[in-house]
């Protein structure tokens, strides 16, 4: 089955910093999704982004399906951004192992 790899596994930022999270997948996909798991364990949809770029406030995502990767950008990070970020290939229901983000005040 398809492999999904995320990097970095852990990221610690100072509030206000920007960051880029990466998701690589082993085969062509057309249905990639990004989630944020907050410290209370809830999985929140961020983006469904098979290709191209989408923006939502301080967050944006880009998927380059032909090169088998997706990027999640977080700008001006806030402590509420802390948690684990997952990418998933939804057709295969395969999740990456996540990037654990800690934003310090």
């Amino acid at each position, binding site marked *: 089955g398809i492999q999904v790899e995320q990097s970095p596994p852990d990221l610690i930022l100072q509030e206000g910093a920007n960051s880029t999270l990466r998701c690589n997948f082993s085969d062509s996909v057309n*249905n990639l*999704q990004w*989630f944020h*798991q907050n410290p209370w*364990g*809830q*999985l929140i*949809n961020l983006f*469904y982004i098979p290709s191209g770029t989408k923006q939502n406030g301080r967050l944006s995502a880009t998927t380059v399906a032909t090169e088998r990767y997706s990027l999640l950008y977080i700008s001006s990070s806030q402590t509420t951004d802390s948690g*684990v970020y*997952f990418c*998933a290939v*939804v*057709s295969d*229901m*395969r*999740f990456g*192992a*996540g990037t*654990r983000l800690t934003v310090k005040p």
Partner: protein
Amino acid sequence: DTAVSQTPKYLVTQMGNDKSIKCEQNLGHDTMYWYKQDSKKFLKIMFSYNNKELIINETVPNRFSPKSPDKAHLNLHINSLELGDSAVYFCASSPQYGQPQHFGDGTRLSIL
């Protein structure tokens, strides 16, 4: 109104017991899923149903049996609970298979 709701939120029980987790979605979606999240936060698909029909059944022990009485509900019954079943179980739904998924808040199962 909660889009995907799971009950209970927490379940603490003894090894060997049988328990059920319920899931309901009010989004009108056709496809529903059960995932298991282990202590290392890894999310793994267990089952997927499309319009009450089982379409995905990953390598899951027979002790786990999903039941979908209608397309808005997908319940998970677990027999003879084992220590290794301790995890957070998430229900999710999507309009159709392969489309964006919406998750419930999870059920934390702890086996004593």
